[in-house]
């Protein structure tokens, strides 16, 4: 059942995933009145054409404000939301490829498949390849399950360990890995008997226990106190070293991203506006939105109380239903406002192209494009 494209290699040897022009649009409910008046159906354009690729064992970061489509991107990669358009190529282990093939998935050369077209019934085996850890450690764990039951579930679903003894052994090991020791004690606890940080450890244990290639970590520290965030970030690093996990790390805090990410994509209203090596992006940002995000981050310096913070951004993110024409950032862009004469034919009219303006540093803004 090899398809036409199978001759060419789709992912390079060190690539584990590549997303091409991904779109996730959620249709809005249409009233009967709209229908009669012939008003066309409207969409929340949560993800509106993004492309990126993940190298093995890299941590790729999605940064942006609330509602810009970070979680939706993560869910698309998990196939938890319907894909409107685009491709999601993933490399899977041979055994999983075989399972998927039996279930009717189209396997391309090099055990690669396009997740966007995988039939629903073949999603389950994909969970062994891609896992997700959610933002809210209070909501993401079933309150009626003990830690043991929470961790036993994925093992049973994927038939990883058949006997109860085997499962307990695996669970004990994973609890030790995430430093919930002694494991016997934590196994019988319920989520409400754990602190926020401990819950997030259980969430990582649940993701890692099936030994996935890729883990989507959706703001895993933003609900935690600053004082324990580093502990979870350190755990993520350890899991990467030990199990070779590749992360998609979602955050709205560039300072956190700096400590854990190799590359950063800054997202605004469903699109990437800048993609670069993490440190370079923070040291030398080009896009006005990236600059604003950086300028907004507080630092523990008492001098900061003596002056206003210069933000160079106006207002708040508009709704993803009414995306502004041209550059979608233009209503908030101070550069545009200051150079309206020069830029108005572009910024409000046509989307800026994504250009590589320095090696491996991509920016989508008319300030840097040929006009």
């Amino acid at each position: 059942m090899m398809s036409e494209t199978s001759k060419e290699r789709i992912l390079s040897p060190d690539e584990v995933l590549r997303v091409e022009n991904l779109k996730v649009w959620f249709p809005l409910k249409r009233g009967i009145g709209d229908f009669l008046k012939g008003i066309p159906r409207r969409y929340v354009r949560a993800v509106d054409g993004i492309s990126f690729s993940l190298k093995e064992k890299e941590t790729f970061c999605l940064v942006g404000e609330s509602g810009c489509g970070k979680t939706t991107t993560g869910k698309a990669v998990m196939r938890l939301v319907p894909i409107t358009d685009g491709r999601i190529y993933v490399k899977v282990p041979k055994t999983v490829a075989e399972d998927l093939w039996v279930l009717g998935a189209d396997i391309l050369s090099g055990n690669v498949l396009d997740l966007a077209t995988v039939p629903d019934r073949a999603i389950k085996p994909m969970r062994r390849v891609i896992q997700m850890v959610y933002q809210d450690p209070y909501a993401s764990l079933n309150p009626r399950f003990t830690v043991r039951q929470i961790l036993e579930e994925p093992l049973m679903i994927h038939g990883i360990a058949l006997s109860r003894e085997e499962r307990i052994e695996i669970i004990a090991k994973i609890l030790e890995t995430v430093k919930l020791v002694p494991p016997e004690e934590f196994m019988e606890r319920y989520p409400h008997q754990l602190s926020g940080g401990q819950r997030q450890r259980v969430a990582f244990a649940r993701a890692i226990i099936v030994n996935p290639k890729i883990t989507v970590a959706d703001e895993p520290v933003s609900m935690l106190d600053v004082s324990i965030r580093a502990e979870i970030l350190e755990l993520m690093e350890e899991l990467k070293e030990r199990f070779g996990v590749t992360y998609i790390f979602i955050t709205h805090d560039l300072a956190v991203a700096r400590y854990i990410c190799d590359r950063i994509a800054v997202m605004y209203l469903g699109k990437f506006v800048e993609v670069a090596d993490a440190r370079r992006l923070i040291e030398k940002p080009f896009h006005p939105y990236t600059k604003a995000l950086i300028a907004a981050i507080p630092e523990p310096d008492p001098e900061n109380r003596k002056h206003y913070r210069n933000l160079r951004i106006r207002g708040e993110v508009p709704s993803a239903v009414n995306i502004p024409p041209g550059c979608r950032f233009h209503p908030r862009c101070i550069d545009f406002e200051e150079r309206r004469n020069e830029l108005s034919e572009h910024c409000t009219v046509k989307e800026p192209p994504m250009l590589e303006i320095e090696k491996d540093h991509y920016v989508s803004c008319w300030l840097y494009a040929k006009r």
Partner: protein
Amino acid sequence: MPLLEVKNLKTYYYTLSGVVKAVDEVSFSVEKGETLGIAGESGSGKSTVAFSVMVMPPPPGRIVSGEILLDGKNIVKMRESELRRKVRWKKISMVFQGAMNALNPVYTVGYQIAESLTLHGGYTKREAGERVKELLEMVGLDPTIAKRYPHELSGGQKQRVVIAMALALEPPLVIADEPTTALDVVVQAQIMNLLKKLKWEKKISMIFISHDLAVIAEVADKIAIMYGGKIVEYGPADKVYTEPKHPYTRLLLKSIPRLRGPIEKLEYIPGVPPDLRSPPSGCRFHPRCPYRLDPCDKEEPHLIEIEKDHYVACWLYAKR
């Protein structure tokens, strides 16, 4: 005389599973025009301090002892009717933690702000309408927002509405309990700019509460670090940030991810915060403290002034 002076405050929650000593012998003061920042992990008692200063500890909480002097008058002893008539919302108001999500969904935000004016401030309906417009402008919102419902507003707009409500009766002291914790960085920075403006233009005194010392640095002139229901370090912002003394303060500062400078390994504070029904003996931080000494688990260190206005409660600095 300071605007607010809190002396040896104890507020406990009398729960079925025991007495939670959420605030235990806490003292601090706020001068006119000054902003006090209270930092500490979740569960350290910050919100309980805030509710206590409003003299409205949430049940089953009770102010057990201590004084809260507002302009020199102890408000703990005041009758509820007097507090309502003279103190709450008029002299001290509060932006509650998570308040922006507690706005009533069935009323417009204008109605909700006006209600606090008519209810607590004796405004007539018409006067209230005018004042609502003023207040919305003061917090950087378009007055037409008054006609909108909470679900029609963004998180940042809702938080501004909640701040407008706290400012309604022009109290000299405003308590803001984690007012930006649920917000995005850009909106957070915008709200912090607003608070600075109120501080400078309206000369408002503030108690600003957060678990994040980086956010507190935006406004606070003076810092109180809370751990397990107690203040463990207290002093001018310039001192506490640049020469932190208490091991807990030091670790808190080292745990903040920085945008600039070398990427050092981030520190964190291993272990979990204490259960305040049975707090650890001696120094409450001793089970997690990398510097603990001999007396730490037996005797409680008291706050001592190690240099002018800078206090720390730790055996490393106490003469025994």
